[in-house]
């Protein structure tokens, strides 16, 4: 939705020009040029890109520094698809990329897109001076808040990735503390040489409506109990897929006469129980974490947090059991006995949620169907 001018009736600004003498953008109404707003552009102008070759997505984070300007790489394709940075980076020359021609090209495009066609933002402004961010209330009207994160992507680069859809990358961004909504979590970012790598969720999980709902709306749920249920639904979704796939495998084995009819019941019993399916999910339906300490630590951290709660309520798991058992035990306790969790431990559910979130992003990203 575009910015609207404070004229008779809401009229969107539809024309943008850059005045190189004053380094200002002028937004005007093409049929009434006298109505305009002016916004200063403080960065060095690099105007070689066409704004129509890019798409801009607004994200949010409370966890940012002005200098957090990263190139976004698609992990599997190995190519740079764009940049992500806090909105303040567009109004300051104090950060490290202020002279980087590559950043400046994207910045110039992003700035225009923010003025001309701010997605999900409608602002009713009078035709006076404006600013991208509210600056101390001096006769300027801030169009965006400070916690806005700009993700600017190159359409040319995206066209080389089959069936690219940014929604499939929301979990990856969320695990790096970039969200589609205003939330307050605090995940540390993994950045290598100013590059942020993002990976899509598994092909088999795309177009799952619950995942869209989770990462675009439900992610704002803050109460630990609600958040736990909202996140655990992803595990429910995944173990349902485990069940369906295992059932097809059984049917295939039967057809291929690898098993006989009498064995079917037994085979089904192996995958019927939720606990067994969760274990299968952790062990067989996600790619191995061996050789990847970061991914392995997601599971060990989850187990650690779950066991704190379980020990605290007097229901410790066998120490030999893994994270799958621990999270399942927590789930059962929350569903059936939440009211009996001591107050001191109820807040611990938030810690479990922190780790559970990282696990579900990992599971969504590395989900596979086993080959045997």
């Amino acid at each position, binding site marked *: 939705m575009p910015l609207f001018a404070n*004229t008779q009736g809401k009229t969107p600004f539809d024309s943008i020009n850059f005045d190189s003498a*004053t380094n*200002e953008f*002028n937004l005007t109404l093409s049929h009434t040029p*006298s*109505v*305009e*707003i*002016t916004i200063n552009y403080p960065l060095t102008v690099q105007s070689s890109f066409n704004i129509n070759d890019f798409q801009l997505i607004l994200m949010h984070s409370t966890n*940012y*520094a*002005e*200098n957090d300007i990263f190139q976004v790489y698609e992990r599997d394709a190995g190519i740079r698809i764009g940049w992500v940075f*806090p909105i*303040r980076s567009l109004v*300051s020359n*104090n*950060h*490290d990329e202020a002279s980087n021609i590559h950043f400046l090209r994207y910045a110039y495009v992003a700035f225009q897109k923010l003025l001309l066609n701010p997605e999900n933002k409608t602002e009713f402004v*009078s*035709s*006076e*001076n404006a600013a991208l961010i509210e600056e*101390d*209330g*001096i*006769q300027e009207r801030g169009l965006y808040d*400070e916690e806005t994160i700009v993700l600017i992507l190159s359409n040319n680069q995206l066209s080389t990735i089959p069936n690219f859809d940014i929604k499939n990358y929301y979990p990856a961004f969320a695990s790096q503390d970039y969200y589609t909504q205003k939330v307050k979590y605090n995940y540390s970012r993994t950045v290598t040489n100013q590059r942020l790598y993002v990976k899509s969720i598994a092909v088999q999980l795309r177009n799952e409506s619950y995942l869209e709902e989770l990462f675009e709306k439900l992610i704002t749920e803050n109460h630990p109990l609600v958040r736990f249920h909202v996140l655990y639904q992803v595990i429910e979704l995944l173990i349902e897929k485990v069940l369906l796939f295992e059932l097809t495998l059984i049917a295939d084995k039967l057809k291929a006469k690898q098993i006989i009819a009498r064995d079917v019941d037994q085979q089904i019993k192996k995958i019927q129980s939720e606990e067994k399916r969760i274990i299968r999910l952790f062990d067989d339906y996600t790619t191995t974490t061996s050789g990847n300490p970061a991914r392995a630590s997601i599971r060990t951290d989850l187990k650690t947090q779950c066991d704190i709660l379980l020990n605290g309520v007097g229901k410790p798991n066998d120490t030999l059991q893994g994270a799958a058992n621990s999270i399942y035990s927590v789930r059962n306790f929350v569903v059936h006995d939440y009211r009996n969790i001591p107050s001191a431990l109820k807040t611990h559910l938030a810690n479990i949620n922190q780790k559970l979130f990282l696990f579900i992003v990992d599971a969504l990203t590395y989900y596979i169907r086993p080959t045997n």
Partner: protein
Amino acid sequence: MKIVSKLFDERIDALNALIEMPIDEYSEIAKYITSKNSFQRKRVKGSSMVYKLLREDLKKGCLIPPIVLAVKKENLSDFSDMRKVEDSQIESLINSKELIILDGLQRTYTILEVVRQLKDSKDPEDTETLTQVKKYNIRIEVYLGLNKIGILYRMLTLNTGQTPMSIRHQIEILYSDYLTNELDEIRFLREIDSQNPQKIGEYKFRDVIEGFNSYLNRDELGLKRSDILENIENLQTLAKENKNEDIFREYITTHFNFLNKMEELSSSWSITREEAKAQGAFGRNILEIFAKPQMLSGFGAAIGKLKQFKLIENFQDIKNSIKEVKFQDNNYERGIFLLLEKLQKIKNSAKNIGSSQRLFMTYFFRELFNKESDSYLIIDDALTNGYNKYLSQL
């Protein structure tokens, strides 16, 4: 023109003359002012329906609120007592056109546009309208006084403009005469010069204004319109301060002394451009580091605060302290790298780098020049303690 009233403003120690003059006469003055002074030349954006209406109303002889001007400082050096200025002297001061527009810039541009439009038009009716418009009288208020802070105070309290100028802009206008007259060994660079300071003594005027603004408000972020009521009291006090000395001059000459002292202590330390780029260094020599706006603002805010807390009397106290400032063990490299390291840490972690660096520098200078602090006159200690103080505010 006709001088209809002269009143002396005791608060700000300035004479206010109310003048009626025809639009014709004013437009000649305004054309000169706006062409000569780069700050006045900048058109405040926002030509909306309101000003279109004003243009039409002017053609019909409407009376606009008084436009407020001030006589430039250098033209007043012959006058010791503003109370005794004669009407003829006021007229010749105005005719010299060495004036600045304090309030009414938008109205001035509107008047100039109307005159130009009618002049350029080939319609005989417009020619007739132009003749009439030129004769319509407008009121002009002119301030004659040396106390710039006092005038700023007056501008803030009485500004009723449609698109009020930012306080910063008002200060720029007030002190714009320093652009044309060099101040001892100090030279100011304008925006249109598009160059960075090349040697100690050169400053970007805009950055100095920002720093001075921070001194006035005792805050590294300067004066904001939203704090106007809080600032009025400050400005009243400052106006008294400015009676005996030109505090803008004192501010910048003190900073100049500090730069020279740092250059001397560091034996003109510098690193190459490549080294600076590789390290992401804040600056590659003393000038680049300490003439940046964050430094000027921190410097101004710190001294302002010290004055407010009566820890210093005036800028001379700071000038005296500067003579004794030193690096620990005279190890300037260690001290400078400590500064660069702190600034780098702030750059990597701050949500707003500029504001955070300003805050750090404010605490640094306060530690350095506060006789009661443990870090008094020792640069390294002031950096460490200043940084810790900055962290404690996060």
